[in-house]
């Protein structure tokens, strides 16, 4: 599926869009570039790309606003190109719906790996969330009706909140989830500042799910940002 996918690259740095266009084309992707958020959004509406790669600091609608607008009309995977010093705005972009980020300067392989993962996820995503009763993802089997969980064939017992958190992680496997997103999704909007809740529950989940909670393989920490769930050890 990833081959021939349409990729929109939005960055105001012409040399970088030049490189990405050529680099991605050489891998068989169909690529278009835009120099600012506004023209990126226009191209998106005309062309319906499978994935958007966007810079954050740009004239005429920055990356954050672009993410916000794209999310209001589409579930297209979005990868942010961010630089050190832009942590705050990067987290904001992830909060409003970006899927992943790559920190500048990056090697093309890292970008490609994240691009493939994001495309895979969006291909796996069922078009509408129908009444699903069972989640099967990697080592995880979750029955939403009986609220039972098995990890690599072993049953684990979770408290109701731990269960909700794990289900949210599984449903958003591979995506970078900010602290705010997780807190709002599992505890509700009033708890978005309560990072310590999250730390405790993630710690408990790791103890129950991971073979070695000290170096987790399923629930990965994205420093200063949040967590990323990988269902395959």
């Amino acid at each position, binding site marked *: 599926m990833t081959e021939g996918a349409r990729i929109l690259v939005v960055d105001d*740095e012409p040399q970088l869009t030049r490189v990405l266009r050529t680099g991605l084309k050489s891998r*068989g992707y169909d690529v278009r570039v835009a120099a600012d958020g506004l023209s990126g959004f226009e191209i998106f509406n005309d062309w319906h790309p499978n994935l958007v790669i966007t810079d954050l600091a740009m004239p005429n609608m920055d990356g954050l606003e672009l993410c916000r607008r794209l999310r209001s009309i589409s579930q297209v995977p979005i990868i942010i190109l961010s630089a050190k010093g832009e942590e705050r705005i990067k987290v904001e972009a992830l909060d409003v719906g970006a899927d992943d980020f790559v920190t500048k300067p990056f090697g093309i392989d890292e970008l490609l790996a994240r691009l493939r993962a994001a495309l895979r996820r969006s291909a796996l995503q069922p078009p509408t969330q129908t009444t699903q009763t069972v989640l099967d993802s990697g080592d995880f089997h979750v029955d939403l009706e009986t609220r039972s969980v098995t990890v690599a064939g072993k049953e684990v017992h979770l408290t109701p909140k731990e269960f909700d958190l794990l289900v949210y992680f599984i449903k958003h496997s591979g995506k970078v989830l900010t602290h705010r997103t997780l807190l709002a999704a599992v505890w509700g909007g009033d708890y978005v500042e309560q990072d310590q809740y999250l730390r405790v529950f993630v710690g408990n989940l790791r103890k129950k799910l991971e073979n070695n909670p000290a170096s987790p393989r399923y629930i990965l920490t994205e420093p200063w940002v949040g967590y990323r769930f990988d269902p395959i050890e």
Partner: protein
Amino acid sequence: MLSDHDQKWIGYVVAGISVALTTTVLKPLGTHINATTVALALLLNVLFIATRWGSLPALFASVVAMLCFNFFFLPPFGTLTIAAPDNWIALTAFLATAITAGQLSARAKRRAEEAESGRQEIERLYAELRDAFERASHAEALRQSEKLKSALLDAVTHDLRTPLTSIKASITTLLDEAKERFDGDAPVILDHESRIEMMEVIDQESDRLNRFIGGLIELARIEAGELQLRRHWGSIDDILSTTLERAATITKDHTIEFEIESELPVVRVDERAVSEVVYTLIENATKYSPPGTVIRLIAQRAAEGVIRMAVEDQGPGIPSHLRKRVFDKFFRAIRDGDIGKDEPSGSGMGLAIAKGIIEAHGGEIWIEPGTDDKGVRVVFTLPIGDDEAEPMRTRVQRVTLTK
């Protein structure tokens, strides 16, 4: 410094001596003066002792004075007998005066001490407050300067990282192809043209990095006051033609017009540095004005001994509130959110360096609107040169710039 105790003793001694002295002086006058005068004179002694040494020495003085008065001046003379009742009144007056004056003086002394200690307290508080204020403003200044530093650092890292990102992305693409790496994707297929393009990006972006670092070094020199001007006598025409030759590639889409006064005097300047200034101004004009428009170079005699030069474009202009700020290092109207069009962004160092160079020559640089209020005119002045300096002699001059 005498202790309070010693002070008191001195009081007693002085009391004794002063009463004795008064008595000795007044006694020989005998009946020439009356008893009331003597009593008043003695009373003055008591008063003096009371104000100076307090109640007890005063009491002592009053007793001694009363005894002397009684013994030497009241009949019967030579005895301590008190015959008349008005002499009892005199004695009471001595005692009352001594006690009242002593207490008054003690109270006044206490008040003075209280006032003194109050003053000292206020002084101490004031000093503490001033220290606290100084510490606070120092901390604030430090915080501001830290903030500025981190903003500058952000700007510098952005400018270093941007070309690095393009270089890294290009080189990893080329490496993947060279190593025939698959890595989950289709194999890399780069045609000849794409390969050249990647290498061009690497080449151009390395140059950009190098230019940026050169600019940083130049700025650091200017700020440290270590800009070394190599001044020679030369002509403005030469400087302009050298600069235009160098700028030929960037000016090809614009029309250059000249407004050069004939027979301009020679100037004693660092030609390379001034040429750099003119180049920066021309480069900015090409960047910020649409292709096909006119860029005007102006050079004329201004005031006595001063040449005035300017580069004028027909671009969108610079709002008046930014005309000074564009000379701040790393200031960029676009990035700093004031113009906000999709205009090119430079390093934010060109004008800061230009200002450093012009000021090192003793000139000035500023921005004004162009002809008919359109576009930008960047103007700078250059003093023709020191009168005492011999033409054609090279001298290295060290300057100190203040911001």
